[in-house]
């Protein structure tokens, strides 16, 4: 086994997510979590990627077993709640409510030639406010300081989901 972790194989992750859409296993997806925040702020260490998807299936499992099977056939490995691509952990999380809106309204980007979507900063802030862990509060502060935020959109999201930004 290699002693060094690989660089983050994000293009592979996004390619796989596009493949899941093409295969009809998910309807849509966007990059969320820390990597989505990093799209807008200074780089910081993170150890996994979060792919938030809109399920094609309405059942309780949100089609996750089929997603896992599809990716495992393509060489991905399973390690507890993560799927590993080139030893890099990726989590596939079914969207609901605010995260579903975040996927639908996500920004279209291209990463190393791979078309993809990434959460808008306003949705990242609202999701962080809804979770409220220390690292989420730090993320809000970072985004407000470093990213271009559409305050009207942010206020609208916060109002609709009855959320509040932490007081500094």
């Amino acid at each position, binding site marked *: 086994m290699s*002693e*060094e972790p690989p*660089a*983050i194989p994000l293009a592979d992750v996004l390619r796989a997510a596009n493949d899941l859409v093409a295969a009809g296993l998910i309807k849509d997806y966007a990059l969320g979590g820390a990597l989505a925040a*990093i*799209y807008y702020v200074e780089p910081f260490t993170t150890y996994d990627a979060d792919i938030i998807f809109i399920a094609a299936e309405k059942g309780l499992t949100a089609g996750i077993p089929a997603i896992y099977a599809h990716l495992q056939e393509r060489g991905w490995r399973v390690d507890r709640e993560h799927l590993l691509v080139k030893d890099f952990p990726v989590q596939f999380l079914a969207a609901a409510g605010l995260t579903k809106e975040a996927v639908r309204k996500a920004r279209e*980007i291209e990463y190393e030639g791979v078309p993809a979507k990434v959460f808008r900063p306003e949705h990242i802030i609202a999701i962080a406010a809804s979770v409220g862990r*220390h690292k989420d509060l730090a993320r809000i502060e970072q985004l407000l300081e470093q990213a271009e935020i559409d305050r009207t959109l942010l206020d609208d999201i916060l109002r609709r989901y009855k959320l509040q930004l932490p007081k500094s």
Partner: protein
Amino acid sequence: MKTDLRRTLARQPFEQKIRQIGQLLQLSAKVKIQRASDNVDSVARGLRAHKTPKILAAEPRMGIRRNPLLISAIRQKLVLQFIYNGKLRTVEPQTYGLSTAGQEVLRAYERTIPNGSKRAGMAKLFDLNKISSLRKSGQSFSQALPTHNPDDSAMVEIFATLPVPRK
């Protein structure tokens, strides 16, 4: 780090940022392997509040220079005062370490009542770059906040932290 520089870093192309994080992860793994081979991982674990005198003495030799006032205040549960964003703060330090953005940070509960007779709210994260006039207030406190997490998720390395409070 100055805000302007952080904004400049934020404006880098996404691909470049991801490459930088990949390099950081590789570097971090190399350091861990080196530490293990030198049998100093015990020192890394010891960079918490309960360090032995031997570990404390080893730190300067290893190039580790942290704020001794913060470390001693956490170890002895001493209340601190400092100026932050133009305001005098009276705080109970909980954890001191390195943030995910690579900054030295202090997690501390800011007293709303000067004598600390009533606690309300959560501990805040203070950037050491913005702290000035740091000093001991002369008061002490009994234990960490009930919500205290010694493995603060906002930090990648912890230099000193309080023990989990008694129930």
